[in-house]
């Protein structure tokens, strides 16, 4: 019962945030609505007993990706001050396309029988995750580090290009 109430609260957060993103005329507020929607998703992960994913959702998606989007908006004055028109000529086309997608997804969801695992949910998932990260999955774990190194170097090289271009203007 409590779980259902909590689920509805998070659903309001997710859907309200999504509607806010597509209806607000200011793109900065749209980004803030987007992070509200993401925090609702974190709530879903908690309800599914995936606490680590909820933490990742908050730390990475809200803490980093949404902040990155807000940064990008604040760095471009034109995007921030102009009031964007939310609709254009293709509104009805988009509505039809999203309705068809909704019907297709609904069809799939209704058809598939969702198997329930007979195993009892472990209490110390995070401990198990940490042990498997550093036990049997240690090579992928280290590769993640290399991947992050590569992405940082790539980001710096790309961003330096932007800086020098800006300096030339």
């Amino acid at each position, binding site marked *: 019962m409590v779980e259902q109430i909590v689920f509805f609260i998070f659903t309001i957060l997710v859907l309200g945030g999504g509607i806010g993103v597509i209806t607000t005329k200011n793109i900065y507020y749209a980004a803030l609505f987007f992070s509200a929607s993401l925090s609702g998703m974190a709530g879903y992960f908690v309800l599914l007993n995936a606490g680590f994913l909820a933490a990742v959702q908050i730390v990475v998606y809200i803490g980093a990706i949404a902040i990155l989007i807000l940064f990008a908006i*604040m760095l471009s004055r034109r995007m921030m001050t102009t009031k964007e028109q939310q609709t254009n000529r293709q509104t009805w086309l988009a509505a039809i396309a999203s309705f068809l997608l909704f019907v297709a997804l609904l069809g799939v969801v209704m058809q598939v029988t969702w198997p329930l695992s007979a195993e009892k949910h472990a209490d110390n998932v995070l*401990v198990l995750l*940490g*042990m498997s990260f*550093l036990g049997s999955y*240690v090579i992928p774990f280290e590769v993640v580090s290399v991947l992050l190194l590569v992405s940082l170097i790539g980001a*710096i090289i790309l961003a330096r290009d*932007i800086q020098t271009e800006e300096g030339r203007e």
Partner: protein
Amino acid sequence: MQNPYNFVGVLILAAILLPVVGLGVAWLVRPHKPNPIKKSTYECGIEPIGETWVQFKVSYYIYALIFVVFDVESVFLFPWAVAYNRLPLYAFLEVVIFIAILFFALIYAWRKGALKWL
């Protein structure tokens, strides 16, 4: 057993109530007499110049990008920290390697001047 997320729920409730009650009571009891000087942005007593919605330098974006990388690193170290007492010594060395590789990223960013505050 008590659900551990109850504490999170209480915290969320407190986080919502604190500003709502504080600002709500202030809204109820305060007098409402605005004038242009009162409504202007407070900037340490100095008169504000221009708008608050200014464009920031593009070079600040690099700090956000570097932050994302180390943010993801912290996410991967989180399960290790929780499981720390159950892990053998070589697991610690593995994490040291993990951090060392990313330390090179920090050195690279530093040497390329990406950490310089403009």
